[in-house]
């Protein structure tokens, strides 16, 4: 049975059509002219227990709206949602007892309290048994050096420490599902790696389902076997991370070093100092074919062929290509 299930879920907002200028503002006061914004439009997907799913999309795609519906904060306009067997918006508190949430930039810990006190309060709030609590803390201590953080108030922590503690706090009650919203935002490379490893371990140890939204493709590459992409409220991709490049075409980049002006039919060409970059879809226009054709008419001093990265594919998707 899937742990998170979305069946044809939509969320429409009514937004006031604002008129321009002062007179327009006055008119707005009296006649309310609404338009409907489809933040999420007919989205269906299901997540099995233990999966880590990367939930991606450009800003304003509907990611936050989806997460808010999953956690019972927002009521869907239509469709069915189930999270660990419950309908979130019908019973927010019961759903909340079985999920964990981390918002990258917003600590959910008590700002002025030492970490250990926050943990103790969470233990009471989530009704964690003494035994489970001790077990979980032992696990945490084996993963990260927590001892020096216990007595430190959250406000005195660095962003990296705070993120780490926030993630630990979200897993403390051993929830079925954890939502991570940009968990590595603003962190340095070493801390990012540490956080990713921690998430990976926590997912494995208790088979916790993780839904991750991020703009950092490094997170996706390190953690997610499956990716769901949403754009303008519509789901446009739901498959494995490896299949992403196949689905959107096998893009490759051919770089050639030449002084000549290069033109070639139906491929994108950009010049980057002495390198000319040609991005092509392998199944439509093989790289070798282009190279052979160019070699006949131009003097080429060097070449390089690069596979497209996940990041570039996502960039293309966000830009509206490949659809």
């Amino acid at each position, binding site marked *: 049975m899937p742990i998170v299930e979305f069946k044809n879920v939509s969320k429409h907002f009514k937004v006031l059509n604002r008129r321009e200028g002062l007179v327009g503002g006055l008119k707005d006061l009296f006649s309310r002219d609404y338009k409907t914004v489809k933040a999420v439009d007919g989205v269906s997907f299901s997540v099995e227990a233990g999966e880590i799913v990367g939930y991606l999309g450009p800003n304003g795609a509907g990611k936050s709206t989806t997460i808010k519906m999953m956690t019972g904060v927002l009521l869907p306009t239509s469709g069915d949602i189930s999270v660990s067997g419950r309908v979130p918006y019908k019973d927010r508190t019961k759903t909340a007892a079985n999920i964990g949430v981390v918002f*990258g930039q917003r600590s959910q810990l008590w700002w002025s309290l030492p970490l250990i006190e926050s943990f103790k309060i969470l233990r009471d709030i989530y009704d964690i048994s003494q035994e489970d609590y001790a077990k979980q803390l032992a696990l945490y201590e084996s993963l990260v050096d927590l001892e020096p953080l216990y007595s430190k108030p959250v406000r005195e922590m660095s962003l990296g420490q705070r993120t780490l503690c926030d993630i630990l706090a979200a897993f403390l009650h051993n929830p079925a599902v954890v939502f991570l919203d940009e968990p590595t935002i603003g962190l340095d490379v070493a801390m990012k790696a540490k956080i990713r490893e921690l998430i990976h371990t926590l997912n494995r140890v208790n088979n916790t389902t993780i839904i991750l939204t991020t703009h950092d493709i490094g997170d996706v590459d390190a953690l997610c076997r499956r990716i769901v992409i949403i754009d303008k409220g519509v789901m446009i991709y739901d498959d494995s991370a490896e299949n992403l490049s196949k689905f959107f075409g096998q893009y490759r980049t051919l770089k050639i070093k030449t002084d000549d002006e290069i033109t070639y039919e139906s491929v994108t060409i950009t010049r980057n100092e002495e390198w000319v970059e040609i991005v092509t879809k392998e199944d439509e226009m093989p790289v070798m074919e282009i190279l052979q054709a160019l070699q006949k008419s131009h003097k080429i001093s060097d070449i390089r062929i690069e596979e497209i990265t996940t990041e570039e594919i996502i960039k293309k998707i966000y830009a509206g290509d490949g659809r």
Partner: protein
Amino acid sequence: MDNTSIKRKRGLRFYLRIYFKIISQDIKSKMSYRADFITTFFGMIALNLSGFIAFWVIFKNFPQINGWDYREMLFLYAFSLIALVPAEFFFDNNWNLQQAIVTGDFIKYCFKPLNIFFYYMSEVFGIRGLGQLVFGVGTLIYAWVGLALPVSFLIIVKLLIALFSASLFMIALRNLSAATCFWIINGLHVMNITNKFRDYARYPITIFGGVFRVIFTFVIPIAFMAYYPSLELLDTKQPVFLTYLTPIYGIIFFWLSYKVWMKGAMNYSGTGS
């Protein structure tokens, strides 16, 4: 996978336990910033003192207002100060509501298996209420002795009931004005205005004209914050029907403010992140 679901219904006892834990930790951490703590405490005393001086100056010039003399007015003044203390202590986080909504931080209160209103209010203990309490009690004792009011078990119980009822109005008014932040962008102004109105609570309602008297009784019920409940306690005054209505009306008004606040919280969807 329902391993941590809540088995029993979360009753008052559960919430009291959690509340006590959070608040005691909060006070502990606040006291650890000693300079901050002391400044806040004495700042509040100074603020109250300046309010008191203004009050005193008025009475140097007008020995009586509508049949209320200096000591009786002082009683009202002290009463309204003490009645405000619970709102300051336990519902102070209302002042941060606009900020929490504008920045989108409010969303975090929706993710815990707790009542949102409870969770939000539990986060801040308004320590500055302490200065207010000390000053208010001191002034009340002074007025009480000056008026030669009796000291008996019955009148103390009456006083406590009256203070409790009045404090419900103080809290409710704060909740309601803060709840406007859920619907309008600058709800803080509403809070400041109602806060100013609250200052009128320390005057007998009879000094206001008919329209204002109705408004201050039924719309912004500041007349219940000191005037009506005090009528029962002062020997020189006769209680009116509304005096006895104060506790019930207080509970209703508080409940209403809670409902409106929660409706706002449910209405809230947060900014994207």
